[in-house]
């Protein structure tokens, strides 16, 4: 899970490997804030799969690649 300057850098880094998913860094920041916001709260409880999937869905991270087990 890395940051890159451009699509060209990603393609070169991947080489022969199958690509995963690429999203803009602003969406990553939104994802991280939705995912980790409560991590240090004394009221933290384990997130269910459904809660985590909802975070992805709300950011339109949908399709098979973003489907949690």
């Amino acid at each position, binding site marked *: 899970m890395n*940051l*890159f300057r451009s699509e060209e*850098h990603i393609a070169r880094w991947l080489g022969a490997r199958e690509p995963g998913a690429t999203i803009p860094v602003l969406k990553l920041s939104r994802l991280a804030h939705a995912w*980790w916001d409560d991590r*240090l709260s004394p009221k*933290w409880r384990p997130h269910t799969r459904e809660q985590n999937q909802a975070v992805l869905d709300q950011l339109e991270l949908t399709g098979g*690649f973003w489907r949690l087990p």
Partner: protein
Amino acid sequence: MDAGDLELRNLTYAKVVELGRVPAAAEVAAAAGREHVDVIAGWRRLHHQHALVLNAATDEIRMANPFSGVPTAYRVHAAGRWWYANCAWDAFGICAALHVDGQIETSCPDSGEPLSIAVRGQRPDDEHLLFHCLVPAARWWDDIVFT
């Protein structure tokens, strides 16, 4: 997750913030008034529930996501300290978890070009950068360190 493990988990994360790094089992045992072996046993249960990640060889913490227990390519300055994140996602996650702005220092894995990103009000100051996730979500926990 039972109440005892939840308490241990929350204490562990509180120690991360207090110390500015992941704690050793001995430090959490002392803070909790528990035996060292009890902390390790609790951490193993939390590991199996994906609430933290242990180093299998040492039973010490490898990841208290988004915080890393080892140096990584993702350094984050936030809340007056430098932290290590496990990946790009977790680098933003450290700002999110601490509820503060921050500065992420890393480099492009292809070119090695330094990348420095300020996070202000949950927004990166360079919105041209791209995030690549290689492993599909269904397989993230097959090998979370690789992911």
